C-alpha cells in the first residue's frame, strides 16, 4: 500500500551497495518536505552523494524504496524523472563544445521547446544567476570557476523543475566566491520556492543554507535537525562536527548562533 503524503521525496528503509562491496547507504528513512532546503551533511564517503543520486535514479536502491512525488524511482521512466529534477555537481560538467547559451538551454532543447522560448528563458536565467547576458555566446573554458558554477546552476534551473539536487556545487571555489554564491543562493531560494537537496561536507555552509540538516555518518542517517537544534544536539557525531568547527575558529560559533535566530 503506498500512501501519498506531503513529502515530495521519501526514502523508505533504503539500502544501497555495489555487488560484493560494502553498503554505501544503510537503513535510510528520510522525508523531504515540499519547498524546503534539506542539506545532507557528512564526511567524504558518508553516503550523502549516494543518497542524492538515488533521488534522480542515477543509482537504484538495492532494497527499499525511494519515492519522488509519490512514485518509486524504479517505477518512473528514468528520463522523465531526471528532467523533472535539476542537477548541479561540483565539477559542473558543462559541455565544452557548447556555448554557455546552448549549455543552459540543454533540457528545454531536448524537451522540444520552441527556440524563441529557449532564448528568452536562457537570458532570464543568466540574469537570475548574476551573469552578463553577453556571456551567453562564450565557451565554458573562457569563464572563471565562479562563472562556470553559476552557469551550472542556471542550467539546472532551465526547465523550471520542482526539485533541485546540488552536490557540493561551491566546493571547488575560492572562499570569497563561495561566500558570494552562498549569499546569492539564499536570495534565489526565496524567489524560486523549489525543493532543494544540497550535499556538503562544510558545516558552516549547512548552517547557513539549510532549513533542515540531515547528518550522515558511515552510510547511516544520524538525524535530521534544524540548524538551531543541530548546534544544541548531543549526539557524538554532531559533537565531532561542532568540535571540528570550534577548533577552526574559536568564538566564531557564538556569532553563528546569533545569526541563526
Amino acid at each position, binding site marked *: 500500500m503506498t500512501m501519498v503524503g506531503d513529502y515530495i521525496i521519501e526514502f523508505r528503509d533504503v539500502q544501497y551497495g555495489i555487488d560484493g562491496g560494502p553498503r554505501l547507504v544503510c537503513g535510510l528513512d528520510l522525508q523531504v518536505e515540499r519547498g524546503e532546503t534539506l542539506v545532507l551533511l557528512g564526511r567524504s564517503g558518508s553516503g550523502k552523494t549516494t543518497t542524492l543520486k538515488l533521488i*534522480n535514479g*542515477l543509482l537504484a536502491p538495492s532494497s527499499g524504496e525511494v519515492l519522488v512525488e509519490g512514485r518509486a524511482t524504479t517505477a518512473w521512466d528514468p*528520463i*522523465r*524523472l*531526471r*528532467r523533472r529534477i*535539476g*542537477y548541479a*555537481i561540483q*565539477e*559542473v*560538467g*558543462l*559541455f*565544452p*563544445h557548447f556555448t554557455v547559451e546552448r549549455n543552459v538551454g*540543454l*533540457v528545454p532543447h*531536448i524537451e522540444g521547446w520552441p527556440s524563441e522560448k529557449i532564448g528568452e528563458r536562457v537570458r532570464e536565467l543568466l540574469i537570475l544567476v548574476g551573469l552578463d547576458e553577453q556571456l551567453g555566446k562564450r565557451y565554458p573554458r573562457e569563464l572563471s570557476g565562479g562563472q562556470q558554477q553559476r552557469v*551550472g546552476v542556471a*542550467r*539546472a534551473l532551465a526547465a523550471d523543475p520542482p526539485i533541485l*539536487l546540488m552536490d557540493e556545487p561551491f566546493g571547488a571555489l575560492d572562499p570569497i566566491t563561495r561566500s558570494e554564491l552562498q549569499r546569492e543562493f539564499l536570495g534565489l531560494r526565496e524567489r524560486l520556492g523549489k525543493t532543494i537537496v544540497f550535499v556538503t561536507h562544510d558545516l558552516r555552509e549547512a548552517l547557513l543554507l539549510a532549513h533542515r540538516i540531515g547528518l550522515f555518518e558511515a552510510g547511516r542517517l544520524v538525524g535530521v535537525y534544524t540548524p538551531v537544534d543541530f548546534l544544541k544536539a548531543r549526539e557524538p557525531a554532531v559533537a565531532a562536527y561542532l568540535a571540528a568547527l570550534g577548533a577552526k575558529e574559536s568564538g566564531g560559533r557564538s556569532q553563528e548562533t546569533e545569526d541563526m535566530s
Partner: protein
Amino acid sequence: MGLLGFFFNNRSEVLELTLEHLWMVGVSTLLAATVGIPLGVLLTRRPAFSKPILGSANVMQTIPSLALFGLLLPMPWIGARADRLAVLALTLYALLPIIRNTHAGITGVDPAVVEAGRGMGMTDRQLLLQVQLPLALGVIIAGVRVATVISVGVATIAAAIGAGGLGEYIFRGLAMVNNQLILAGALPAAALALVADFSLGLVERAIKSRQ
C-alpha cells in the same frame, strides 16, 4: 635517364598506378571507418565485447601483410579478383587503430560531462550523438589518420598479388634489379603517406581547437 625523366616519360602509367593506389587506400579506409567506428561505439556500451573484438582486430594487424594477402587468396568471391582481395586485407589492417581510438576517444570524455548529461535526462542516444561523439572526434580522426598512413604502406604489397598500385614499380624493380624503378614506386608512395598524414593532421588539429 634520371628519376624525373622516368616520371615524365611514363607519366600516364605513373598516374594510373598512383590512382590505383589511392583507390585501394581510400575504399579500404572508408570501409574500415564505416565498420570500425560503430564497433568502437558498441564496445563502450557493451564492455563485455571489448576483449574479443579488440583481440581479433589485434590479430589481424599482427599477421604480416604479405601473409595476410596469401591467406585470403583461396577465398571464393574475394580471392577471384586481386583488387577486392587487396581492399579486404587493407580494411582488416585499418580496423584496429580505428576501433581502438573510437573506444578511447569516447571513454576519454570528461566523466563529469557525461554525469551531468545523464543526470539532466539525456537519453543514451542523445548523449552519444550530441556529446560523446563530437568530443571524441579528434581522437577518432587520429585513428583514421594512423590507419590511412599504414594503408598506404601496406598497399605497396598489393602489387605482389597483382592488384596494382605503386608497388608494381617496386616489385618490378626488385625483379629486374633496377634501383631507379624501385625508387619510382617507393618515393611517390612515401610522398602519399606524408601528404595523407599531414592533411589529416590539419583536420585533427582543426577539430581539437574547437573544443
